[in-house]
């Protein structure tokens, strides 16, 4: 024990005062530690958000600095929510969301299930499979564009190698019927490992004795799979699905680099559409209302996500 004067003074005084002599109180430290984070988030996230809400009720245009914005009430919201083109963008987003989640869950879960068989070297192969997930989506979109090139691209070559189709007879990025699938393929390639990792954690959280007990009860392997494996992994799967859902709902970088929303607007997901309204057409007020609609949707999903997160945490 040290015997600095300050400690002896502290030892002789009642506890609250002692703490003050020794240093800041816990409460003060807690606030000093948390305050900068909260302040930064208020300045760079919440303040802009409130500003967006305000702008969403006006007809402000950011490229015309001289004109005073007018307050136009809910008209922006009205226009967006009755616009059938935006409705179509939403459906394009829905197509993208549904199929990416479908394939990622299917492949991701299968892979996790296979890896959980603990064959030799599974760690090494898991690490290799995980690589695409951590890469920059914009750059990934950019080089997949190269792979998708008609005539010269590797993707067309491989498809024609296996199906015998002429490699110049189809254009993944240029054809209205194929372009929505081209973005699904790339997103699945990139994010399947994410679903896989979470499923793997779910599978590994199931204790062996449950299966052993089922073996003793002579439950078939198939029955074990549906009554033990699936229900136990489900909360983890929910987490993965929600997270991918949120991320893909606001998908921007990957698709903008890959297709730029085209051909026509068949791959124009909502974020890309929003970017056009805000930074190309400069309809700032209108785009702000659009942003708020997307934000509320994401926020709603995020609250469900956090609920699912806490559920998994308790396990």
């Amino acid at each position, binding site marked *: 024990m040290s015997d600095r004067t300050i400690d002896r003074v502290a030892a002789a005084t009642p506890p609250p005062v002692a703490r003050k002599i020794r240093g800041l109180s816990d409460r003060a430290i807690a606030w000093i530690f*948390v305050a900068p984070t909260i302040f930064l988030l208020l300045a760079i996230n919440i303040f802009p958000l409130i500003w967006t809400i305000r702008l969403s009720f006006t007809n402000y245009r950011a490229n015309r600095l001289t004109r005073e914005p007018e307050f136009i009430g809910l008209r922006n919201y009205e226009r967006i929510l009755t616009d059938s083109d935006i409705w179509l963008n939403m459906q394009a987003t829905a197509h993208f969301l549904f199929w990416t989640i479908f394939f990622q869950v299917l492949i991701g879960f299968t892979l996790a299930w296979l890896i959980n*068989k603990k064959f030799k070297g599974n760690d090494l192969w898991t690490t290799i499979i995980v*690589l695409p997930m951590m890469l920059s989506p914009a750059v990934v979109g950019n080089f997949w564009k190269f792979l998708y090139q008609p005539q010269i691209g590797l993707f067309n070559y491989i498809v024609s190698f296996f199906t015998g189709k002429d490699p110049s007879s189809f254009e993944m990025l240029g054809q209205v019927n194929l372009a929505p699938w081209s973005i699904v393929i790339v997103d699945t390639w990139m994010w399947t490992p994410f679903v896989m990792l979470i499923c793997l954690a779910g599978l590994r959280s199931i204790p062996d004795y449950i299966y052993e007990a089922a073996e003793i009860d002579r439950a078939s392997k198939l029955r074990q799979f549906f009554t033990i494996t699936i229900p136990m992994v489900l909360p983890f799967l929910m987490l993965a699905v929600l997270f991918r859902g949120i991320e893909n709902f606001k998908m921007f970088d990957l698709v903008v680099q890959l297709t730029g929303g085209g051909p026509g607007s068949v791959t124009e997901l909502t974020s890309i559409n929003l970017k056009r309204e805000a930074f190309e057409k400069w309809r700032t007020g209108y785009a702000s209302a659009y942003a708020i609609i997307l934000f509320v949707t994401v926020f709603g999903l995020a609250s469900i996500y956090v609920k699912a997160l806490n559920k*998994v945490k308790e396990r």
Partner: protein
Amino acid sequence: MSSFSITEPSNRTKWFAGTLVILYAVITMIPLVWIAITGFKSPADAIAYPPKYIVGSESEAGFQPTLEGYVNLFTTRTRQTQDFLDANPPETWADEIVRQYDMVIVGPSKFGERFMNSVIIGFGSTFLSVFLGTLAAYAFSRFKIPLADDLLFFILSTRMMPPIAVAIPIFLMYRQLNLSDTHLGMILLYTAVNISLAVWLLKSFIDGIPTEYEEAALIDGYTRFQAFYKVVLPQAATGIASTAIFCLIFSWNEYAFAVLLTTANAQTAPPFIPTIIGIGGLDWPAIAAGVTLFLLPVMVFTILLRKHLLRGITFGAVRK
């Protein structure tokens, strides 16, 4: 010696599972390997059909590796007359490469600059978010903070925001404050994006450190603050390091804010790489070279992180 267990998969199952997983891993690597190879091709070989994939072979599927892509990535070149070329013989190996197109190197390209911007902004924002995140995570982990759950949810929800949704007012705000297209502006912005991850992830790491050590230190006469940096910080070192790598990767990869808020001075590599133009269209070998250089550090970091990957992507909820 094999321990007997009825839940242990049979050897045949293992073999079957292993084959399928390895097959998937190989398929998943094809695009990445292809890009790495393309970086070493000449522009003509890069767009040849059928694709050339055997290094150094004279056969139809073979190509001679060249550093053209990398030279084009880092330099700007101009075409010159034959007289000029005759009067100025090539000085370096890079000169030799561009000579075959009757060109000379006139200076460095923007790539190095953009790459450095990525490094500066990445490290700057990582340092800030880990620094602030550690403090906040410690406070959330150890002290009773009123409305802690709401604050934590608020912090996490900021990460869920669609970047384009907040980009509009940030664009206006930065225009007012003269922060648009500056390093400081981007560092602050990326810090705000990353801090939620840092707080949640570090909280999960600090939650895992037993409180006994600190309590012992407090009894020994340490102040709270001393206990924090002399006892907790060293134990949280692994957690802090992996959080830092996550933050670095995310700011390294970010595109939406970079493309909307930067144009020249502070532009990072992701918006720049796709714009590399060669003779008659996109210069694919140069782009592939840029992509390879840009992705390589992330791959190395991912391999380093593999033990903490799951924790990172689930904001610390799943610890394995």
